[in-house]
């Protein structure tokens, strides 16, 4: 299973980025191999509809779950339609969030956790 953790940096020790669409980096984690890979979020500085764009990208990357801080209505609608589970309120380091997720400590959300933001 492939999960994406929004991250403020490019290290496992970087903190989770509480923003979804405008996160600085994405960390992709493969639960089978235990591999981490990081990439910069190319959509972070977009003018609008960033949540939609980022969610579409998650679907293209065949991500099955997202760990992040907050997720807005447009992003949630897209992720949900793509069958991607959303686990909000993740915090601490990326590695710690992955461990917490694997232990089943996060609850997935059935709706957006905040309004659409433009910055």
């Amino acid at each position, binding site marked *: 299973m492939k999960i994406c953790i929004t991250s403020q940096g490019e290290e496992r020790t970087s903190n989770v980025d509480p923003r979804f669409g405008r996160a600085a980096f994405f960390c992709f984690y493969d639960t089978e191999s235990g591999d981490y890979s990081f990439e910069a979020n190319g959509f972070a500085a977009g003018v*609008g*509809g960033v949540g*939609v*764009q980022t969610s579409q990208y998650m*679907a293209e990357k065949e991500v099955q779950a997202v760990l992040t801080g907050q997720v807005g209505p*447009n992003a949630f609608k897209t992720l949900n339609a*793509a069958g991607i589970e959303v686990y909000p309120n993740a915090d601490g380091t990326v590695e710690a969030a992955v461990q917490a997720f694997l232990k089943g400590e996060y609850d997935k959300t059935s709706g957006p956790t905040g309004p*659409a933001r433009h910055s």
Partner: protein
Amino acid sequence: MTIAVASGKGGTGKTTVAVGVARALEQDVQLLDCDVEEPNSHLFLQLESRESGDFSIPVPRIDNDKCTACGLCSSFCEYNALARLKDRVLVFDNLCHGCGGCRIVCPEDAITEELRPIGKLVSAQVPGVHLLYGDLNSGEVLAPPLIRAVKRRGASEANAMEAGGPGYTAPGAGGPLIIDSPPGTTCPMVTAVKDSDFCLLVTENTPFGLHDLEMAVQVLDDLDMPMGVVINRSDIGHSDVEEFCRRKSIPVLLRIPYSRKIAEFYARGESIVDADSEYRLRFQEMYRRIESIVAEGRAG
């Protein structure tokens, strides 16, 4: 002649000036309130009649039987209003600017359009002033399409008048047209002032007033539009605005000193020209100066 009344900073007195000029002139005037997020010119005119209609923008609807989820529409959309998933495309009405591009690029002819109301277009009349304004619905962000609609309607009513058309006392095409612009220097302001012959910038003698005036001047320089400044509450604050105008050779066409009486009239929804009849003459004189600046620009 079209004069836009704009400002960088909000609350400097755009509407006071726009309505003041419209009321002061002794000929029929068209007044377009393009501050569609907060139209308020109508509060200062005792309207006799009002006609209101919905303003809508086209948003895409996708026929899932025809759509192959190729993604051309979503990659075309600059506003990310379309999300391509593996087997279908999602539409976000609130992000759509209504350009219609997705329908054109769709190779499967799977997109049709539906009208979504985002505001109202209102036409109203007082003696000597034909007022048109847009009123964006709460929560909507797409001011520019509604502003363009107000301007289009203004032009078509002026043309209808020219042709001896129905019931408006609008001046004919080319007659005095005053645009009350939204504050700021972003898309709504640019959309409102664009194609005007002249722009009046209303400001005040404060650091914010000057800072935002400087930004508005940059926009007008980019649009290559002649401009003049009105300083409201001109006897309060410092002199940096005057110095800035001198340095940039921008004429200060009117100074309105602070007056409790004007403020009281304003609070009752009455115009500055009612509070002090001298302003009728001052606005007329300002209008004549603008006419000659525009005429010089056209000649030179």
